[in-house]
Structures are given as C-alpha cells and as structure tokens.
C-alpha cells in the first residue's frame, strides 16, 4: 500500500520537475560542507544550478518549494570506487564490463565507461539512497584502465558521464595479477612502463616509423599514459601493506605522479609520509580483519588516524556484499562507522562529498552547496549516516530523480500477501 503511494509520489515528482525551473529547498539545516552548517537555511536552484545558499534567501514566487523543516540538506554523496553500470551481476559473465584483457596485464587504453549500461538496475536504489555521483573504476592487471565519473541520472551514457577519464587505475598489491612473480618484479615492470611512456613521448615519430627499440606496451596504452607521467591525470594505485604504500609514494616522487592511494589497509602506519607528500587515500572504516598478509594491520580507526595526521581521506564502502554495485548505496554507513571509530562527523561528510570532488578535480562543479555549483542535493529526514534516516529528495543537476527501483517493485508485488 505505502509502496504504491510512494511510487505515485515518485511519478508525480518526475512529471512536475520537468516544468519547474526554479526550486527552493527551505527551512532545512543546510550542510554546504565548504562552510559551516546553516540552521533554517534555503538552497535556491535555477536551471539545475545552485544560485543561492543561506539563512536569508529570497524565494521567487514561481519557485517550486521543498519544505525541509527539521531535515538535513547536504550535497549528493560521491561514491569513489564503483562498478555501477559496468557490472550488473558479478557471477553472470555477460554483464561484466569492468576488466579488460589487456596486453601483458596492461590495459591503460581501456575506457571502462564505454561499456556503461545506463539501464542498470543498480542505479535507482543507489540514487534513491542519496548517492548522486560515482566514479566508475576498471579492475584487474597491473594497469587496469581509466576511470570515469558519472552522475546517476536516468538517460543515456552521454547524460550520465560527467568527466572521463578522471584517473588511471593501477595496483601494486598483487604480483600475480600484474603478471609478475614478486612485488619487486612488479615495481620494476611499472617503472619500465613509465620510462617507456616518456621515451614514447620523446621519440613518438621514430616509434611510428619503427625506428626505436620495442616498448613494454602497445601504442594505445603508451598514449593513454602520457597524461599520467605529465602529472595531468591522477594515478590511483591500490596499495595495502605499509611498504606498498611507501613504494607508491617513492614512485610518485620519482615520476612526478599525481598519486591517489586506494585500499590503504595499513596507511595509518605511513600517515605522516602521506600527509607530507599530500597524497590522498581512498579507504573505508569497517574492515579490521587481517584478511591477507598485506592487510594484517587493517583497522577501523584507519580513516580517523589518517585524517588526524592531515591526510586527505575519501571514504569508500568496504564492508558487506557488492559494495561497489548493488550495495554502493551503503557508503553512508561506512561514513557513520568512520565517525564511530574516530573521524569527526564533519570530516566524514566531507570525505564522501567535497574531498572526493577535490581529489578528482570536480570541486568547481560538485561536492558542496555553493552558488554556481551543480544542484546535486539530498534532503534527509535526519543524520545522513544513521539507519533511521530516510532520504526524502534527491536532485541531480536540479532534477528530482527518485523513481521506484526493482526492489521497490518487488516489495509492492509481494507485500499485499500480508493482508
């Protein structure tokens, strides 16, 4: 019954927003993230862009009003490690487009978003629970490929892709996956590759004529890595053991890379080095099991300890099933657990909004509630990280995008049997 009503509301909302160009979210507690919270504030949106945020905002008479009295208003959450839209059902091979075959474990030319399926059933539940933006990341090999950022709007790929590429993805945590037999061999292979990219940059014409020695990756991969070695495109490196993190830092120093660490199980042991090098870390706050010999000192306080040392921390989901897909929605609970284990609430909210926007070079458009930013906004019934909180409105570029998910439809179908 209630599910049916909810669905009716969704449809109505979708129908009306098409015409409403100006939206005012009023009387909410606003968390702009870029500045202090505003009690009883208003967010004014016009044509998909935030035009005013504050306690005293004039609301035009023709604006559609969303009353947020007693509610919390935040930027839409950003989930920075996902396979949304590129893996539908993990064990159904035909629905998996996150891992390239590559050439000798190098897939730098792989553009994962070119396999994005905007019709994926994973999008609706994710955005209905407050995530407006996701980084879609490739996996596997030594160099996995290029990541792109999408807004979770219904439509076609072109409507969803915000910027691509936003990063190159690699890993130094698993020698075998890299096609090597030992960590040291992996690091050598990686350095040779980066040297070859530089060589290719300098002697590209000779290479094209076949007048050079052979290089360790095909032309398309070398080409794709140029922005990485010139420091224009961030390189996300998965590293977990303390020495892996230190090795990534050394590599970034030697090659002037714009490094981002992902995983970072033992990053807290290198917190000061990470802070000094200003290297951000993408990590969770719910893993504390020494699940491999590379993660023996994994602990839930990791994010809080890193933050305290001055490291920029982006929270990603780590606990539970399918946290990069079906349960990408659970990022908010990772943030709640981060708070329980020593992060401040402000830092945790920043770690799922403005910090990832900054790390991926998107903070001029998203991640905070400020005039001029895209209107990716969520209205919550209470604390965004609490289980008791319900997401009441999700706006992406000013468009209200909640619609019933497959899961809502199943509930609607099976719930009436109760009566």
């Amino acid at each position, binding site marked *: *019954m*209630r*599910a049916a009503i909810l669905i009716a509301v969704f449809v109505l909302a979708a129908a009306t927003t098409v015409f409403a160009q100006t939206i005012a979210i009023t009387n909410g507690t606003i968390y702009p993230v870029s500045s202090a919270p505003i009690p009883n504030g208003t967010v004014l949106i016009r044509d998909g862009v935030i035009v005013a945020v504050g306690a005293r905002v004039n609301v035009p008479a023709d604006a559609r009003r969303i009353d947020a009295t007693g509610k919390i208003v935040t930027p839409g959450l950003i989930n920075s490690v996902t396979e949304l839209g590129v893996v*539908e*059902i*993990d*064990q*159904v091979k035909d629905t998996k487009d996150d891992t390239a075959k590559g050439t000798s474990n190098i897939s730098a030319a792989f553009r994962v978003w070119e396999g994005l399926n905007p019709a994926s059933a*994973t999008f609706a539940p994710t955005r209905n629970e407050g995530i407006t933006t996701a980084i879609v990341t490739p996996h596997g090999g030594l160099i996995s490929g290029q990541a792109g950022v999408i807004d979770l709007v219904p439509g076609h790929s072109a409507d969803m892709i915000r910027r691509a590429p936003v990063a190159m993805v690699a890993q130094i945590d698993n020698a075998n996956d890299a096609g090597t037999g030992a960590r040291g061999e992996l690091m050598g292979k990686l350095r040779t590759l980066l040297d070859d990219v530089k060589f290719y940059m300098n002697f590209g014409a000779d290479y094209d004529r076949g007048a050079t020695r052979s290089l360790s990756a095909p032309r398309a991969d070398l080409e794709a890595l140029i922005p990485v070695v010139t420091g224009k495109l961030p390189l996300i490196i998965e590293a977990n053991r303390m020495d892996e993190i230190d090795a990534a830092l050394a590599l970034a120093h030697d090659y002037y890379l714009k490094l981002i660490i992902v995983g970072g199980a033992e990053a807290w042991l290198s917190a000061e080095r990470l802070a000094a090098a200003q290297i951000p870390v993408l990590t969770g706050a*719910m*893993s*504390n*099991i*020494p*699940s*491999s*010999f590379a*993660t*023996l*000192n994994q*602990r839930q*306080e990791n994010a809080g300890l890193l933050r305290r040392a001055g490291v920029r921390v982006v929270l990603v989901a780590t*606990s*539970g*099933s*399918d946290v990069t*897909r*079906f*349960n990408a929605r*659970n990022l908010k*609970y990772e943030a*709640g*657990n981060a*708070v*329980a284990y020593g992060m401040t609430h402000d830092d945790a909210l920043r770690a799922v909004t403005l910090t990832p926007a900054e790390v991926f070079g998107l903070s001029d458009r998203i991640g905070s509630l400020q005039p001029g930013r895209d209107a990716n906004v969520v209205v919550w019934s209470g604390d965004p*990280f*609490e*289980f*008791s909180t*319900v997401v009441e409105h999700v706006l992406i570029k000013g468009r209200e995008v909640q619609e019933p998910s497959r*899961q809502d439809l*199943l*509930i609607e179908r*099976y*719930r009436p*049997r*109760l009566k």
Partner: protein
Amino acid sequence: MKNSSLRFITSACLMLVCATAQIPRAQQPKDSTKKTSDSPPPGPGGTSVPNANPFPSTYHPFPSRPTLIRNATIMTAAGPSIKNGSILLRDGKIAAVGESITAPPDALVIDATGKYVTPGIIDVHSHIGVYPAPGVDANSDGNELTNPVTPNVWAEHSVWPQDPQLPRALAGGLTTMQVLPGSGNLIGGRSVVLKVVPSRTVQGMKFPGAKYGLKMACGENPKRVYQTRGPSTRMGNVAGYRAAWIQAESYRRKWDEWNANHKGDPPTRDLGLETLAEVLRGNILVHNHCYRADEMAQMLDIAKEFGYQVRAFHHAVEAYKIAELLKASGTGAAEWADWGGFKMEANDSIKANLAITDASGARAMIHSDSADGAQRLNQEVAKAMYAGRAAGINVTEDQAIRWLTINPAWALALDDKIGSIEVGKNADVVLWSGDPFSVYTKAEKVWIDGAMLFDRTDAAEQWRTDFELGVVREKN
C-alpha cells in the same frame, strides 16, 4: 565501580591468557579428553558402534563474579524493553532482571545510564575458524569439494581456534555461533555450535549439549562446482539429495533394528549415513542454504518425502515470496539485511525481507556468513528494521532484537538456554554504548556465562590470538 571493575577485568583476562597460552603443554591431553556430564557412555561394541559424542565439549565457564548492571535500557527479546532497568549476573546465569535490584555485597556494580543491554548475539551462519584469516590456501578448510555429498565431514575438524576473526566477533557482541561447512556441496557436512571464547582446542569452545546441524545447499553453488562430473543442473541437485536420503533411510532402519535387539554383528558403520540417519531421527537439525522461493518450496517437499524437518533456510533471499510456506512448515529463515546482486539467485534481494518474513508469521533471523558482518549484526538488523518500516511494516525495536538473539537461538534449539534476558538463562549479555540500532553504537562489554570476556575500555586486556602476536600491532 571503576576500580573494582578494572581489577576484575585484570584477573579475568589473566585467566583468559592462561586458558590460551600459559598452561604447560603436558596438561593439554588431560584437558581435552575430559568429558562433560552430558556425553553418553561409549557404545557396547566399542568403536564399531556409533558414539553420539566422540568429540565432547570441554568448555567450562570462565571465572566470574556477581555483576549488577544498573540504569540500562534492557532489551530482553522476551517482552517489552525495561527502561532504567537492572540485571544481575550470578554464577553464570541471569539471576534477576527488573527495575530495581539490590546489589549483593560482593557484586561488581556497573552504572549503565544512557546505555543498553541485550542478550548476546547469536549467528547461525558462520565460517569463522573453517575459513580463517588470513585467507590462505593452507587454512582454507570450509568446503570438502571432492564429492557433492559429504555428510561424513564435520566442521569442527576444520576449525582453527587461533582465527583472529574470533576476538573481533566477540567485540561485536557475538557470544554464540554455528560454524557450518561451505555451500559447495549438496550435503556439506555437520556444523558445530561454538561459544566465542579463547581456547586452544575447538572442544574447549563447543557449546555443551548443543545439537549438531547438517549443512545442505541448493542452487547455483553445487551445480557450478560439479559442472563437469555432476550435478550440473538444479534437477541434478534434487536427484542428489533424494539419492542420499534413500540410502540414509535404509541405514537408519538397519541400525534401529540392531539397536533394538542387538542380534548378531552390528551393521558396518558409515560416517556419512550415520549423520543423515541422525537427521531422520530428529537429532540433527537441517540448515539449508537456499536463495530462491521455488527451490525452498521443493526442499520442503523433499523433507516431507523423507520425514525430516528443515530447521532453517539460510540466505533465503526470496523468503518474502513464500513466507506462508515457511510458517506452515515451522521452518525458520536466516537472512542478510541487504546482500544481493552477486549472482542470479540473489537478484531479487530486498531489504524488507526480514520484516515481511516476520510479519507473515515465519521465524525470521539475521545471519552473517561473513566474519566482517558478524561484528555488526546489530547494524544489519537496524537496516532491515528501518527498511521494513519504509515498506509500511511497523517493526518495533523489541521485535527486531529477536532477529538477533532468540530466533537464532531457536534455530539452534538452544532457546531454553540463551537468546533472551530472563531469569535462569545463561548470562550471555552485551552492554552497548547506546541504542544498538544506531550506527555510532559499539559493544562496550560482553559477558559469556557471566564472565566478562571483552571490555572495550581496556585495550591491554583484550583477547589476542596466537597468530596476531608479533605481527598485528597492539592498539595504542
């Protein structure tokens, strides 16, 4: 309160250390052969006749002192919560629960203003110990994937008591768990019910008097594992279960007859059929991994055909579609809050599953299937409870606490001993820093049989497994 409690913890944990490491090796065999009073005498024919309990529990409660927790919200799982309540733990049991209890003179008194007390959490689906951390091949002992039907294997023979996942589960308020073989086989083997306590031997963790379970599995896993040799289809799966039960039935008849008249030589023992026959006699409980509604319905028919009960379906991702069948057959459903999407049979996962199962009158419970999730089953229940409310089902906190405690206790047939806060039950109790359904709440103290085995406020005294020494840094 502070000083005495700290002293107490120190002594309890010294004991705890003793139990794990400091007893001379020479004493170990004597310990591990000691039998509890509930183990039956050996069979008349010596080893050729089944002994119902060849690996008896050697668990003894850790030393404890009377403990009074005051001014707590007590979620009893047996009725409405008690605000500003008190609970007295004495001699390993819950001695009193109420609004006001006078502390015995020797009691440790804990002021729990603003805090919550619940029964110890029970996880009916764990692979801790059989798939320990770190996850290395050398210790990967959960699935005997050499034959699709292996009722002859017992999970307890794979459990590594030094699994570092154990202390982490205890720190999440988990006091009892059923460790199951994996789901690669149609019939995977016997489960074991363990207390989450430090011990050098698995016998030292075994819940005295707990029944064994039998792990069965439907669907994708067995047919994927045995693709080339079979079963490779769901119909092959069903033929496999039925063939096993046909053998078991005949084995049970032979042995029941011999047990009745002791004529001639006893029939030859078969470890696998022995376990299945015990299921048919109602002495071992069936725990059946099954996702899809239609498969659960078929498994219920197979149970009817051979005259056994399915105690609980595990995962039961589509329980909400057939909750009335579960209710009618008296079968429980052990579920995740939100796992789904990882394979076809998990594709119809909904967060309201527990709420709908419960509201339909079937026995619903949370389970983890994960050493990670086992540390936060309270959070999992919170997700499921609020999802139920969002779907228009008014689940109260007093109902939801049952998903964590008394309902899983029922699935293990231990609901007369654990799972609720009632006088006379085992003093398995968790003190929470706040509402257990808040993301910010942590288990502060955990008691098993009245002994405080975890105290978050005292890092130096927390249980560390042998494995962790010297490689996992102590928290500072």
